[in-house]
């Protein structure tokens, strides 16, 4: 039996001439439905239909109709749909509201006036289902991005929805975190999951769909094979950490001795909360070391934070890139980096109107424009499809070729294999 169905649904975001969804006919049943497809192809728009964000939150123009759990999508208020459909967003920061994990998971239940005793049991069950019981008393502010995503899922599960919708939930989880999350999904009656990083997922899904140019079709095609690597010749020492201890509140890392060279790409991997971001922030000079010395050779440092979309504040993407170029005195035209990241057609758009993957690319373009001497990229492939990830890889290749020292923190094994000259594991306070 279908839990959700869309009939001839077309949808346009406000002010957009082309439809984000074009005559979508779809029935979603029990089990895991996997939605793949290129960035900006309509995956998120499709998912947002199920809890009424499209069209009730985004506005615009809509044609056709649909139902979820017997509720009409066009006439049911979103507050009703939210009880039937749980949604985990691309960006967990956007969905967490409470200071403490336990309160966060209970938040939805409090709004439904669930009795206190039952609330306690449901909070516990939801946290257990995602393998995050240990986080129960933690402050949300101290969680890593991946841990936040688990909490976001737990707070959705506590509402006991008929349908759970997840928009790239594993984009910033480590392999163990992803596995735990996916294991939790298989226990649920009905799940719609949009993902770029497919790894072994298609084989596990009950149903496979591809969204491209607003249209849905059955099946998922295999990603293109990776291109061969280009050799690199690292130059002088570009950065150095000597006996560094660092952490946002007390030492998370201690006794770190590292050296990086110009034209060298260093990848940091390791579990969520292990200290990858702390290491990058210390290297960027954003976080003063608690002990030891941090050295950087002259030149501009480009730093891409994890929630990179938050960087964007200009009216267009082109203006973002021009701002960086103006500040760095770079003579290159903005089209170079825009073209490199496949953003030429989007250059005049308002950054917040873009999809998360497009916004991520825009933030990277705005950060790496103007030949930086050191580029620090935190989870750069977050929200990116295979094509966009390849473009990023080309951009990293060019930076390294120009003598830029690159350090990137990532869970993306494909990216590490494609670009890294050296792989460091950051775990348990140590870097190996």
């Amino acid at each position, binding site marked *: 039996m279908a839990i959700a169905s869309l009939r001839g649904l077309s949808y346009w975001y*406000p*002010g957009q001439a082309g439809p984000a969804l074009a005559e979508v006919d779809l029935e979603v049943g029990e089990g895991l439905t996997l939605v793949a497809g290129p960035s900006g192809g309509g995956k998120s728009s499709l998912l947002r239909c199920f809890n009424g964000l499209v*069209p*009730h*939150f*985004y*506005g*615009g*123009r*809509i*044609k056709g109709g649909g139902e979820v759990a017997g509720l009409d999508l*066009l006439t049911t208020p979103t507050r009703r749909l939210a009880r039937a459909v749980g949604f985990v967003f691309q960006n967990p920061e956007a969905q967490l509201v409470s200071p403490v994990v336990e309160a966060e998971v209970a938040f939805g239940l409090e709004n439904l006036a669930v009795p206190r005793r039952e609330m306690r049991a449901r909070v516990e069950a939801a946290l257990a289902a995602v393998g995050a019981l240990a986080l129960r008393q933690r402050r949300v502010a101290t969680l890593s991005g991946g841990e936040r995503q688990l909490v976001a899922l737990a707070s959705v599960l506590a509402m006991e929805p008929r349908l759970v919708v997840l928009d790239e939930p594993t984009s910033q989880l480590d392999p163990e975190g992803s596995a735990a999350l996916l294991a939790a999904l298989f226990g649920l009656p009905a799940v719609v999951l949009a993902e770029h990083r497919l790894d072994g997922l298609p084989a596990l899904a009950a149903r496979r769909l591809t969204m491209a140019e607003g249209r849905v079709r059955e099946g998922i095609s295999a990603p293109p094979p990776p291109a061969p690597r280009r050799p690199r010749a690292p130059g002088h020492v570009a950065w150095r950490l000597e006996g560094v201890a660092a952490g946002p509140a007390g030492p998370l890392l201690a006794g770190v001795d590292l050296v990086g060279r110009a034209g060298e790409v260093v990848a940091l991997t390791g579990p969520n909360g292990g200290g990858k971001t702390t290491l990058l922030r210390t290297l960027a000079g954003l976080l003063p070391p608690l002990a030891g010395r941090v050295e950087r050779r002259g030149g501009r440092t480009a730093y891409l934070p994890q929630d990179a979309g938050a960087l964007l504040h200009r*009216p267009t993407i082109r203006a973002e890139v021009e701002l960086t170029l103006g500040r760095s005195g770079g003579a290159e035209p903005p089209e170079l980096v825009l073209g490199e990241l496949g953003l030429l057609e989007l250059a005049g758009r*308002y950054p917040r109107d873009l999809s998360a993957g497009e916004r991520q690319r825009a933030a990277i373009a705005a950060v790496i424009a103007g030949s930086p001497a050191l580029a620090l990229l935190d989870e750069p492939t977050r929200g990116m499809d295979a094509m966009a990830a390849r473009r990023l890889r080309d951009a990293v290749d060019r930076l390294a070729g120009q003598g830029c020292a690159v350090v990137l923190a990532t869970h993306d094994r494909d990216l590490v294999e494609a670009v890294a000259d050296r792989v460091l594991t950051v775990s348990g306070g140590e870097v190996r």
Partner: protein
Amino acid sequence: MIVALASLAGVALFLWPYLGLGPFPAAPALAVAGGAVVLLAAIEAAARRLDTRLLALLAALAAVDAALRLVLVTGIGGFSPVFFLILCAGFVFGPTYGFLTGATALLVSALATGGVGPWLPYQMFGAGWVGMFAGLVGLRWRSLPALAVAGLLTGFAFGAVLDLWDWSYLRGSPGAGFTPGLSIGAVIAAFGRFYLLTSALYDAFRAFGNVLMLLLLGPPVLAAMHRLKARFTLVVE
């Protein structure tokens, strides 16, 4: 339409002392202003013209205005940054929304700055009318210069309207006061003298301050509000 009825309550409040009815007591005046705003919001919400999103925006605008007023509690002359958002909100979202923004912004910012007093209900109506006027201008002319002119006019008009309230305390001052029994022409002439002597220069700061803020900060704020308005609009085919 409903906003016109709410305004009528305000007009009655301002004209009360001049109709020979004596000063209007302070606490009921606040009840009249607060009641008009709550009733207007309730009717708009029931008619589905004011949904949760617009209500949330209204609260945010009032909160930002309260913060702006905390930055500059007494203002520079008559200038206060609170009118800028009221003018923009009315211009983009229409007269009724403008009235609600003005009245709630003044109410909330008075609570935040300790500016609650017998003047508050009159300020609420005055600022509400500023937003309403910007909304009426926006229905007819969509350009920034039109809004700037509205900011200029309402800068003076807000002061003049509020003067009506404290002028009623100045009864009988020779030449510039109000004495019951004067002809309408003589009353207007006396108020004109009073306004030019006490308020014109002070209000000029507000009027030109409004123009300056609208010209400098108007484009990005109006663009953001237009983007929100587009989001709040759904066309079902």
